[in-house]
């Protein structure tokens, strides 16, 4: 049992970043905008966290507040790229997939360019001394199994615990959520009752950027402790997979991201065991993508359908 608890615990480390980014994807796609650019926004977030924390450390010495500043900076950097995405796809009605690809190219290029300038040509940032430490939650962490698995984790994990139900509440219980979803399903209907389609799509994309940035920052501040070209390599796409696998629902996304995170955790975890040598790690890496394809192809149950208007720029003259 202890081993399983440990596996869940380390799964959470991998999953939380995916949960954030995929939750972001929920808001964006529910508002009608495909966001292939989650990867780029995560990259921006990871970069922002590394740089901001680095400056906090060099200027003020390592303090426990510096990762928090990094986290906020990560959110901010994600927002910058999300703003570009929203401007192009919503205001200029550019193709959402292409803009997503652009965001991914630009985010990597701009962040590495800046890293090389700041660190004199080096391809990665300095190792941070002060990153997040695990916070055991008093009382809860003492619960057998559950405490060890879920309540002895990084602060970001607890943020995820809050954000998932909060997102579900926002989307399904509030006027804001109803309007956001209406814009993603039938922008013409929303428009004719006076809902500002542009505004809600901007909000959807910006939330996705903020959350993807949070996800990227989480990786820097809990896993890698610095930023390089390989800090974010594919997590944004696994988040998209989790988004689909979780059927555009925050709780579903939590489950899917947890599951995909476990595939990654399992890789490190299995090295403890003899038999693990016979399982090529590549297959564990592949798992999220293969499963998502299977789900999409409708091999299990009904094939899934996203928000009806996602992917289409809204053209009022065609309403």
């Amino acid at each position, binding site marked *: 049992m202890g081993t399983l608890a440990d596996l869940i615990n380390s799964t959470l480390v991998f999953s939380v970043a995916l949960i954030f980014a995929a939750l972001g994807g929920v808001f964006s796609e529910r508002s009608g905008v*495909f966001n*292939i650019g989650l990867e780029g926004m995560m990259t921006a977030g990871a970069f922002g966290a590394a740089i901001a924390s680095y400056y906090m450390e060099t200027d003020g010495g390592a303090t426990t507040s510096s990762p928090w500043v990094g986290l906020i900076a990560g959110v901010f950097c994600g927002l910058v790229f999300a703003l*570009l995405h929203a401007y*192009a796809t919503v*205001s*200029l*009605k*550019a*193709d959402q*997939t*292409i*803009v997503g*690809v*652009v965001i*991914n*190219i*630009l985010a*990597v*290029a*701009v962040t*590495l*360019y*800046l890293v*090389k*300038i700041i660190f004199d*040509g080096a391809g990665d940032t300095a190792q941070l001394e002060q990153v997040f430490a695990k916070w055991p939650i008093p009382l809860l962490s003492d619960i057998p199994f559950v405490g060890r698995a879920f309540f002895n984790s990084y602060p970001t994990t607890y943020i995820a615990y809050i954000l998932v139900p909060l997102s579900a509440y926002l989307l399904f219980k509030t006027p804001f959520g109803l309007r956001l979803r209406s814009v993603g399903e039938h922008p013409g209907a929303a428009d004719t009752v006076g809902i500002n389609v542009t505004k809600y799509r901007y909000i959807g994309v910006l939330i996705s950027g903020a959350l993807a940035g949070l996800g990227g920052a989480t990786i820097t501040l809990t896993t890698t402790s610095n930023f390089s070209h*390989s800090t974010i*390599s*594919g997590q944004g*796409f696994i988040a*998209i*997979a989790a988004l*689909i696998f979780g059927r555009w629902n925050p709780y579903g996304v939590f489950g899917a991201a947890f599951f995909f995170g476990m595939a990654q955790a399992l890789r490190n975890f299995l090295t403890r065991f003899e038999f693990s040598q016979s399982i*090529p790690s*590549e*297959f564990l*890496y*592949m798992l999220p*993508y*293969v499963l*998502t*394809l299977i789900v*999409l*192809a*409708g091999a299990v149950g009904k*094939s899934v359908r996203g928000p009806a208007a996602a*992917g289409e720029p809204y053209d009022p003259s065609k309403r």
Partner: protein
Amino acid sequence: MNRAADIFNKPSTYIPFIAILLGLLCGGIVMWIGGYDPFAAYGALWNTVFGTKYDFGETIVAITPILFTGLAVGFAFRAGIFNIGADGQYIIGMTAATFIGLKVHLPAFIHAPLALIVGMLCGALWGALVGWLKAYRGVNEVISAIMLNWIALYLSNYMLRDFLVKKGEQKTPNIDETASLSIGWLKNFMNGARMDWGIWIGLLCVLIFYVLLWRTKQGYELRAVGHNADAAKAAGINIKASFIKTMMISGAFAGLGGVFSVLGVFHYQVVQAASAGYGFDGIAVALLGGNHPVGILLGAFLFGGLTYGSSGMNFEADVPTEIVRIVIGSIIFFVASHGLIRTVIQPFFKKRKSRERKGAGMNGNVG
């Protein structure tokens, strides 16, 4: 369905040129902010590309893969499919060619063509998977292709690690000399630049792209599906088969890109943590090239030149090579957001615009 066609059917051919200028301008501003001299940097870029025979040859080496992936993306676009999966098809084609190049031993006249054809076919099949999922399972091709890109990467790594690479190493041994598609005399002529058959087959593919799409019955049908799948279906065209055919041809183009990277340029393959992204550059190339084979060729020249030239910028002007990725990203951004360009340059094109409007007015459908 019409989306792919819509992206490219903008009548304005001036947009790519303005986008290129704006992209270079963005790059210049970013360099200036970073404390570099943009003029020196762009000068260095030009010199690198056109400086020596060797450099020009290596520029062509940089052009070749994105010419193939550009053709792959452009062809699929014309037939109504957004092939974001050229990356995976490229990797699969490359890995298959490596496998044949290493594990099969045959005389040269058959070994190289076999490796080429197997690589191409494997790329085609990987592409066909996207087409099949779209045709028979209704899976959005963008999503399935993204998934398949990563699956391709890991599948390739698995193949390399378990079958082709010696334990502890990250790259395969060189392929058999008999499987090489390098052109020795041209290599010597270009002072050692890694010249191969890739660019020539690429040019042939440009021609094939054109003839196939605009001169044959098959192409007529694929274009009909690309523009309006419903009408094509009602006219008796098998659109499911069309999706699969399109993706096979597209995947074959992308696969060829991977084939030449191994058989022509490197002669070995490396285990990678992430893909080199040629498929995504292919999207950029196709978009810039207006989805026309000649445009794609020009687009590949530009982006290939920029990519190879970035090393010179780094060497001579000390600018990080990422600057070129910023330039390329900006160019696609401006092409995709042509609305922005239109607004900015509207004053200069007022006359033209009013003429366009008049023309469009003939069909004003007012209800």
